[in-house]
């Protein structure tokens, strides 16, 4: 059992990394489609050979050519099927804030909520792009936070880095804040959006920031490459990246997983949407030996041992992998009513 669950964490990391790759690849695909539509791709590939921009374009090119129908035979040689590849490229747009992946449109419910609040109306297109995220959240809960969100991934790695600080005896603080903050921020943000008629949380919600900043980063590098200045360049980033850097520093030194636990308005909305999720982390009380290992590892700072996985739980399953007694698992019900673990037969160790 424990082995199997460990695979779940491996799968989660794999999905998180895949999301980062997709996030970086989509703007490159967009520029690739520009060159392909203008029939300048082959020229560009030769011109930029060996540079960062040229190599990424070549990588994307080989990827699309490997897809079914990506290549065709013309006068005895294999060439790229331009029309088919252009059709494929149109299925990839945006970032984690609002993404079209393989033709499926998905929008963050927070973005949709803000758009609706500010505009005081809803569009059919927006409802269509909400289908996948809302169904997934209602069934599985806040899984966006633990499986998809690139900032959540970044902050998980930050949390790991706190161990290094502890090893160096730098002792990072862990100041606790109120969890209610994120629900308040969500409410206040939506009211502000309705009042100012402008989306407000879109400017401070990290996945939205990452969506725009990665787009600007990649497009900025390609724009410079067209002017002949090849190589890495990050000068196009705005103050919004500093917000994310600030969050990382704060979490590293002052409060563990501060943003996701206490502040994130998007996580709050995902939590509320998934409040009645059928698939949730559940505790089998008859197996639990009260070792509290799960309490220490929970990234959201909950107490799985007391079965208190309310709307804040993002179903990441870290507590399940940490459990030695097979007492935690995903289940369809919230609480399994059973007799508590029978401690008889175990040696009683009295505290001194």
């Amino acid at each position, binding site marked *: 059992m424990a082995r199997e669950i460990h695979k779940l964490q491996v799968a989660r990391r794999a999905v998180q990394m895949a999301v980062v790759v997709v996030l970086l690849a989509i703007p490159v695909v967009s520029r690739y489609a*520009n060159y392909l539509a203008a029939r300048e791709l082959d020229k560009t590939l030769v011109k930029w050979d060996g540079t960062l921009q040229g190599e990424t374009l070549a990588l994307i090119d080989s990827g699309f050519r490997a897809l079914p129908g990506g290549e065709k035979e013309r006068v005895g040689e294999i060439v790229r099927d331009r029309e088919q590849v252009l059709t494929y490229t149109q299925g990839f747009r945006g970032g984690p804030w609002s993404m079209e992946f393989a033709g499926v449109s998905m929008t963050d419910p927070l973005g949709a909520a803000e758009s609706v609040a500010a505009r005081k109306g809803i569009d059919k297109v927006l409802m269509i792009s909400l289908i996948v995220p809302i169904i997934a959240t209602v069934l599985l809960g806040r899984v966006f936070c633990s499986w998809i969100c690139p900032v959540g991934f970044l902050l998980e790695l930050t949390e790991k880095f706190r161990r290094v600080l502890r090893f160096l005896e730098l002792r990072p603080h862990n100041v606790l804040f109120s969890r209610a903050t994120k629900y308040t921020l969500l409410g206040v943000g939506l009211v502000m959006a309705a009042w100012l008629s402008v*989306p407000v949380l879109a400017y401070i919600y990290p996945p939205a920031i990452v969506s725009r900043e990665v787009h600007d980063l990649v497009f900025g590098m390609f724009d410079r490459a067209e002017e002949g200045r090849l190589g890495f360049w990050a000068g196009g980033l705005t103050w919004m990246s500093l917000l994310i850097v600030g969050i990382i520093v704060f979490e590293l030194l002052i409060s563990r997983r501060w943003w996701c636990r206490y502040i994130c308005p998007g996580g709050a909305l995902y939590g509320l949407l998934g409040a009645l999720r059928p698939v949730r982390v559940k505790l089998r009380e008859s197996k639990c030996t009260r070792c509290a290992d799960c309490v220490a590892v929970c990234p959201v700072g909950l*107490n799985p041992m007391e079965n208190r996985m309310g709307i804040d739980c993002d179903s990441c399953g870290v507590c399940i992998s940490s459990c030695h007694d097979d007492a935690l698992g995903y289940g369809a019900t919230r609480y399994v009513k059973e007799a508590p673990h029978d401690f008889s037969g175990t040696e009683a160790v009295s505290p001194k």
Partner: protein
Amino acid sequence: MTHDVKQTLKPNGLGRKTHSRRRFFRKSAGTAVMGGFLAAVAGSYMRLRTGGVAPAKARGPLGIVRPPGALAENDFLASCIRCTRCADACEVNCIDFFGSEAGPLQGTPCIVPIERGCTLCLKCGEACPTGSLVPLSKKEDVDMGDAVVDDRLCVSINGTGVCGACYTACPLSEKAITQGIRNAPEIHPDFCTGCGLCEEFCIVDEREGLRAIQVVTKRTWPYKKEVA
């Protein structure tokens, strides 16, 4: 072993009582941080309301060019969620975004025709997840603005040459632009989509950012122009 809500568990499972005054300060600290974020956003908005320099992409009196199918400016600002899908979908990479100097316009798409005009591929409308850009099926339905010719600058009109670059560049030439004597352009605003290809390809480069034919829209910078 039960814990009441006010207790926090240490990794060893032992409870630690959190004092209510400390809890109060922590709650206040969280609220203060949250308020700070929102105040920064609201502040940039109010600063522009009361004064602030319009960014170059707002094109001064010529007005902002939004991608094809954009809603009326107020609705557009409200419903656009500042993702980047329109620019990712754009066939010629003509869609640019306002930067942080633009306050509440930050992250909204615009077209700067003098750098790159729109070829009316209409992919952005398909890509928009919020309906801020209404999907259009015909090039003729697009109305981003109208091209306006400056008679003193146009070489075909002022008599210094024979050009016709705008007519050649126009995706709806013969409808939106017709040519008179010595290729002098004549604009028909009913058909002109405001794509700005004429502005991009206009040969007049008298001063930086000045062409003989320019797209004029009604979406001028909504905030006060200059700090007094």
